[in-house]
């Protein structure tokens, strides 16, 4: 096992709070949802396992009862219950899951009636290939054909969510994003002052 502190990216002898915070951040980063429809899902799962181990180890060391996190993890990525599918579709799904994209594509081409699920599966295959524009187009068709299906909508939302996450991470990483700048602070103060005055009080005398 690697040094658990290193795995969690905290200094040796970090406090329980620090460890928890780092752990939460990492779980969010490597959560299977981030890697769904992505050829690296297995790797991410392993990484998460390592993080969980490190966390459990450190928590035990701190002689505290585990919080709910590790029990949640056992359920990640395993709840794939699909409704009634034709056998061909479930075969295609199996192939996509196991990363056998070519086989999935070949099976998909054998289907003659192109219903919503067909377009959805086609979209998943495109995702795996890294053809995002085609993927979004295909899944959108599926959503339009069957607007009530949450699985299709979910897939579409997840793509947008990944973009969001990427940009938020970059934004938070910027040095300027850290604290409040002077301008926002002044704005806040003035606003608070106005509010206070409305209610008959006064926060800043001179304004």
């Amino acid at each position, binding site marked *: 096992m690697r040094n658990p502190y290193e795995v969690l990216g905290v200094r040796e002898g970090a406090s329980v709070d620090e460890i928890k915070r780092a752990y939460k951040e990492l779980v969010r980063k490597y959560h299977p949802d981030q*890697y769904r429809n992505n050829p690296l899902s297995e790797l991410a799962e392993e990484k998460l396992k390592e993080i969980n181990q490190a966390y459990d180890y450190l928590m035990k060391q701190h002689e505290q009862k585990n919080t709910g996190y590790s029990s949640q993890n056992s359920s990640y990525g395993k709840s794939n219950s699909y409704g009634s599918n034709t056998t061909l579709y479930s075969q295609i799904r199996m192939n996509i899951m196991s990363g056998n994209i070519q086989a999935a594509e070949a099976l998909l081409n054998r289907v003659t009636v192109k219903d919503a699920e067909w377009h959805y599966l086609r979209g998943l295959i495109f995702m795996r290939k*890294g053809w995002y524009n085609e993927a979004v187009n295909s899944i959108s068709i599926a959503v339009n054909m069957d607007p009530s299906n949450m699985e299709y909508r979910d897939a579409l939302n997840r793509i947008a969510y990944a973009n969001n996450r990427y940009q938020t991470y970059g934004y938070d990483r910027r040095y300027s994003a850290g604290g409040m700048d002077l301008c926002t602070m002044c704005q806040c103060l003035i606003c608070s002052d106005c509010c206070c005055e409305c209610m008959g009080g006064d926060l800043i005398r001179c304004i």
Partner: protein
Amino acid sequence: MFGYIVPDKGEMKIKEYELFRAYYCGVCKSMGKSLGPLCRFGLNYDSVFLGLFLSSLNNETVDLKKENCIANPFKKKWVVKNSKSLDFSADINILLTYYKLLDDWKDDRSFLARFAQIIISPGFKKALMRNKEAQQHIKISLEQLQIIEERKCESMDEAADPFGQMIKVILRIGCQEENYKKNKAIEWLGYNIGKWIYIIDAFDDIEKDIKKKNYNPLLFQFKYNNEEVEEFKDRIKEEIKFNLIHTLAQAASAFELLDLKNKNIIENILYLGMEKKTKTVLEGRSCNKDEKPL
């Protein structure tokens, strides 16, 4: 390549910036030493990223020296020396530059390109001898790209695929360790970066390609109907941005699975520099204008 993979310098720590610059000078010196001084004009940020990334991935202990150079004759600068990854990246850069010039000569009959191509051809031959495997893959990818261009492919994903495959293979060859799982993450990173370069370059070239009647996948995918260039760009901007950002998000997700040195610098490039570049290119500032040598 094209010089889109840049760091966001303002968000770097001084020590990160200094190290990045040492890599930059290192690639330049490596090109000069092994391929001939004139090859150094082909230096760009993409090859610096390639060198830095591979060197960090291969866990190289870098050898830093202070040296003079032609661009800065009076002030000595830190330079990364004796790095296999940097030498590899310099070679790849020459191979790609050579093919790009060849392409320019074929497309536009640009004599400048022809002239430059002849000048770097001794360097090209040397680089080719050292990297036969990579050169084979580059050639295959570029041939596929040409087929796609000739049949006027209407899908930008399909058109970008060979380029993505090419960068993927280059990264895999440059990674010296044989670790199947690690390779998978490296390949996914490479594929997505390659696609990003291709698509952002396609967007950057829209105006030029309309004028010269060259193939550009975006014109076909979004059915260009002789409208004003700016109008067309505005029409497709959001969708292109969504795709480019998602490509970067996927590349970043692969990067998160790798253990390598210089994480901060690479993170800066992947999350900040490339995102910023995406926005500046989409908002219409040409890439050449804000790319300055260090």
